[in-house]
């Protein structure tokens, strides 16, 4: 193990990790918004949109992100739509993440018993008030385990962005292996980088879930 090499190239990894985190943060935030929107459309069965969202969710969940990215990055320019690596990465991540988030929120929404809604209505609350005070707070806390699994899943998925020429962690490792044949060192730094990014997030989510379960408010 050549630790001088490790020391020398750590800044490359830090820079790449920054890019990975930035793209993941933007992509996941937008995924949450898209997911919320889609889950609400599905939950209220808004005509036409409901169907469209259904098709989107199935397409997105049953195809690999890599192909979605290749289509965006190599395919679309052929019909004149040229997107940067970063734009492709974000669009791809949101296309994928939106459907996963939508399913997480929807199962949360659907787990709220109808009698809860009726209890709210019979207090004279409007439909909007019932949703914002009774349905959403419960639905969100119920969907937290699925939500946190999705966040970790999406961060992991960012590793394929190297395939559309984004200089992320994978790409740095691949280059170092190719250029200097420093396989062990490059892979060690690669694994460490992902551990440093993902382990704390995973632990925080586990703690939140544990707290929720203990404070669980099942009847």
């Amino acid at each position, binding site marked *: 193990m050549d630790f001088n090499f490790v020391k020398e190239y750590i800044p490359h990894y830090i820079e790449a990790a920054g890019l990975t985190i930035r793209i993941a943060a933007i992509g996941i935030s937008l995924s949450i918004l898209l997911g919320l929107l889609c889950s609400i459309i599905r939950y209220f069965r808004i005509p036409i949109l409901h169907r469209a969202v259904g098709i989107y969710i*199935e*397409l997105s*969940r*049953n*195809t*690999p*992100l*890599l*192909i*979605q990215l*290749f*289509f965006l990055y*190599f*395919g*679309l*320019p*052929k*019909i004149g739509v040229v997107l940067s690596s970063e734009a492709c990465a974000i669009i791809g991540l949101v296309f994928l993440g939106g459907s996963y988030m939508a399913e997480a929120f929807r199962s949360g929404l659907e787990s709220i018993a109808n009698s809860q809604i009726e209890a709210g209505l019979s207090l004279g609350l409007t439909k909007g008030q019932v949703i914002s005070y009774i349905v959403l707070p419960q639905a969100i806390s119920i969907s937290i385990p699925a939500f946190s699994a999705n966040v*970790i899943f999406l961060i*992991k*998925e*960012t*590793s*394929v962005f*190297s*395939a559309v020429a984004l200089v992320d962690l*994978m790409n740095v*490792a*691949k280059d170092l*292996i190719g250029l200097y044949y420093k*396989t*062990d060192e490059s*892979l060690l730094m*690669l*694994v460490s980088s*992902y*551990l440093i990014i*993902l*382990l704390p997030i*995973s632990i925080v989510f586990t703690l939140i879930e544990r707290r929720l379960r203990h404070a669980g408010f099942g009847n």
Partner: protein
Amino acid sequence: MQDLGIEVLFQGKNLFRLLEGLWVTVRISIISVLISIVLGIVLGMIMTMRNPFIKIITRCYLEFVRIMPQLVLLFLIYFGLTKMFQINLSGELSAVIVFVLWGTAEMGDLVRGALTSIPKHQYESGKAIGLTVVQNYLYIIIPQTIRRLLPQAINLVTRMIKTTSLIALIGVVEVVKVGQQIIEASRLTTPSAAIWIYGVIFFLYFIVCYPISILSTRLEKHWRN
């Protein structure tokens, strides 16, 4: 007439080659899933043991495999193992190893979850009507475990098939790689091939994964009631 690009699919054996590539993808997934199911059941049973040492080891394995992106695992096996042991693993073998490592972890956790989710009174009521331990497992515990397990196990198959797209990045000639080869070969004759080829691959994956997803949700709904 303007070049549409779609004819690239029908030139020579292009479509056939894509389907052949798809088969490589599916084959690797199926082999990996089958091995993962067997090892996963063993792992799941081991994980229900109370021994703290076993608990820590299995937990670490599970967390590591789950936290690492599959592409990183592929690199670790394909480049790392090759260098460390001076052996030359084919891309395909590396892929199977990675998917089995990952699939065993996921299956193991599913099996553990299914086993521990069977309420205690189910074990007891079997005993109460005079079943032997073996009969109890055979007629009561295992059927319930399978009902909880099978939909998620099937779901794991689609996740694996989708993930196999990554093995193109370590040089395995499967559907994505074949697609790249076709695009490369027809660069001069059909410049717009990329959009068609990737579009077709997109739908090929969909056609393979969608029925499996549906099967999984159907089973889950069916057994929940």
